[in-house]
């Protein structure tokens, strides 16, 4: 069969059937004032050679800076085998297939991925991925509203220690569907949800609480107490987690007495390069009792009519091609390639390898913060344990200092003042296993210089 959508004869016969003279005539009802004849400000098309040259010139402007920014996306070493395998023709597709069972290899890969994510988060079921961690939080809140049928309020408690961009995205995804997001303040000394913050919600109808661990400041929340508090009040718990950290920290499925209900997060740390902000992928796992409310799809292992093992889409009856407007979400995911990379990454690393990455990142961050707070004018912002990220306070505004560092080839961290102005000049800094002691020393020396310059100016 030829893939020619419609010939000129087809178009003419279709137009004749509806009594219209030309395709142009179909647009007649749009007023001329709203129609644009040509795009302005868009240059002429360039050839492949010209584009290639332009892009390599632009890429050169980025340089190869030493990156100490985390804040949701983390630079980890990616073994060369990960993308060599992920880009093989057999795997090279962005999609989880619609004609799924014809692609047994893809389904097996997703099945292995789900098994790994369920195991990593300590929960029973995993879907086949979401777009990213931020939209994952929105999806998890919508899922919690569907799953918590004893709550009518659709109120979601979101501590301000949850990534601010995740909070904004969740509100954008779910805010127009009647969900009410209520922010919980954090303790400015510890950078965590203070134990007393929840007391005022006792006796109120709350649907779910979102808890990020480690939180946006890299600090560890008292997840056991928070989880038990929520469950005692019929509040579902949405955990937002960093997958690398789960090699060391207690998985959401073991938080408190009962464990979190839903876990989501960004899968980027698992073999996906930073690549200027994406594409990444989101993951979602949950307790079995909530599986019917989960967005996306689940691949299962089964036997065919002849008794042979095979893989199949087990859960998809609530997806949009079946449930239309009443689907659990409009997500079927086109993050398949990134999931493939993550699955290869996890299988190459194994539990011991992932633990070494997590432990090395934690150790490097301690070393980094230890070196930075010896710089005059720099102090640690919060006391208490952290994973691989910490906030530091500066005695000069952060933005100009970061600019000076960038000029020295160092991305010095995230300026916290945009989202947390109450903290004063502060940076969120991160070091992973990719940083050496020499890198850390270089950053500390450069920071001392930049602060000196800033004071002198």
């Amino acid at each position, binding site marked *: 069969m030829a893939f020619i959508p419609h010939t000129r004869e087809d178009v003419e016969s279709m137009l004749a059937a509806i009594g219209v003279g030309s395709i142009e005539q179909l647009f007649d009802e749009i007023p001329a004032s709203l129609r644009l004849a040509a795009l302005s400000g868009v240059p002429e098309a360039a050839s492949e050679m010209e584009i290639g040259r332009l892009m390599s010139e632009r890429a050169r402007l980025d340089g190869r800076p030493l990156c100490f920014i985390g804040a949701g996306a983390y630079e980890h070493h990616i073994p060369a085998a990960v993308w060599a395998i992920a880009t093989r023709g057999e795997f090279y597709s962005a999609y989880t297939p619609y004609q799924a069972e014809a692609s047994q290899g893809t389904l097996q890969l997703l099945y292995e991925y789900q098994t790994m994510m369920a195991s990593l988060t300590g929960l029973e079921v995993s879907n086949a991925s979401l777009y990213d961690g931020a939209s994952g939080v929105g999806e998890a809140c919508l899922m919690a509203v569907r799953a918590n*049928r*004893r709550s009518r309020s659709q109120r979601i408690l979101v501590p301000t220690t949850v990534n601010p961009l995740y909070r904004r995205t969740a509100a954008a995804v779910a805010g127009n569907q009647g969900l009410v997001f209520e922010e919980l303040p954090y303790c400015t000394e510890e950078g965590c949800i203070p134990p007393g913050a929840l007391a005022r919600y006792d006796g109120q109808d709350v649907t779910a609480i979102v808890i990020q661990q480690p939180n946006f400041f890299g600090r560890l929340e008292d997840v056991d107490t928070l989880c038990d508090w929520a469950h005692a009040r019929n509040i579902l718990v949405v955990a937002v987690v960093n997958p690398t950290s789960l090699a060391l920290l207690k998985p959401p499925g073991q938080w408190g007495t009962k464990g979190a209900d839903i876990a989501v997060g960004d899968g980027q740390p698992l073999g996906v390069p930073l690549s200027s902000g994406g594409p990444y992928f989101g993951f979602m796992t949950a307790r079995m009792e909530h599986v*019917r409310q989960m967005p996306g799809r689940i691949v299962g292992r089964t036997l065919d009519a002849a008794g042979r093992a095979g893989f199949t889409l087990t859960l998809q*009856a*609530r997806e949009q091609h*079946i*449930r239309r407007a*009443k689907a659990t979400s409009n997500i079927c995911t086109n993050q398949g390639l990134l999931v493939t990379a993550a699955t290869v990454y996890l299988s190459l690393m194994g539990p011991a390898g992932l633990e070494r990455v997590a432990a090395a990142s934690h150790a490097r961050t301690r070393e980094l913060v230890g070196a930075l707070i010896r710089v005059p004018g720099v102090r640690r912002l919060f006391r208490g344990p952290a994973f691989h990220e910490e906030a530091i306070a500066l005695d000069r505004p952060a933005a100009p200092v970061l600019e000076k560092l960038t000029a020295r080839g160092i991305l010095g961290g995230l300026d916290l003042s945009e989202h947390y102005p109450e903290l004063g000049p502060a940076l969120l800094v991160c070091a992973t296993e990719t940083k050496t002691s020499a890198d850390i020393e270089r950053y500390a020396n450069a920071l001392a210089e930049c602060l000196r310059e800033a004071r002198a100016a």
Partner: protein
Amino acid sequence: MSNVPTDLKYTKTHEWVRTLSDGTVEVGITDHAQHALGDLVFAEVPEAGRKLSAGEPFAVVESVKAASDVYSPIAGEVTASNPALAAAPEVINSDAYGKGWLMRLRPAGGAPTAALMSAEEYQKLIAEEGG
């Protein structure tokens, strides 16, 4: 030919209604509906105490091929939902008018089932739909 008991009332959306001796009504999906859906694997039923208006979706039945809403035939308050469905949703396939009931409802106002279809009318409807 679908089974359409004459002692029940029906809706266009393929629910059946049985009036019980205490004045409450029992609601389920018809034999025709379960047949069209295929093997049922899950039924999401309402909590007791929920107030429903006529035509409001109150349950979701999910088969191997689709998930469909079930609509309340009349207004009222849910008094019970079928606890057996969580473990054995397939009883909706095997016994749509008996063990496969979905919920019991206390009707708001009097004589609520008069507006519903008789078995004869429902039989005609599914015949027209090709069932």
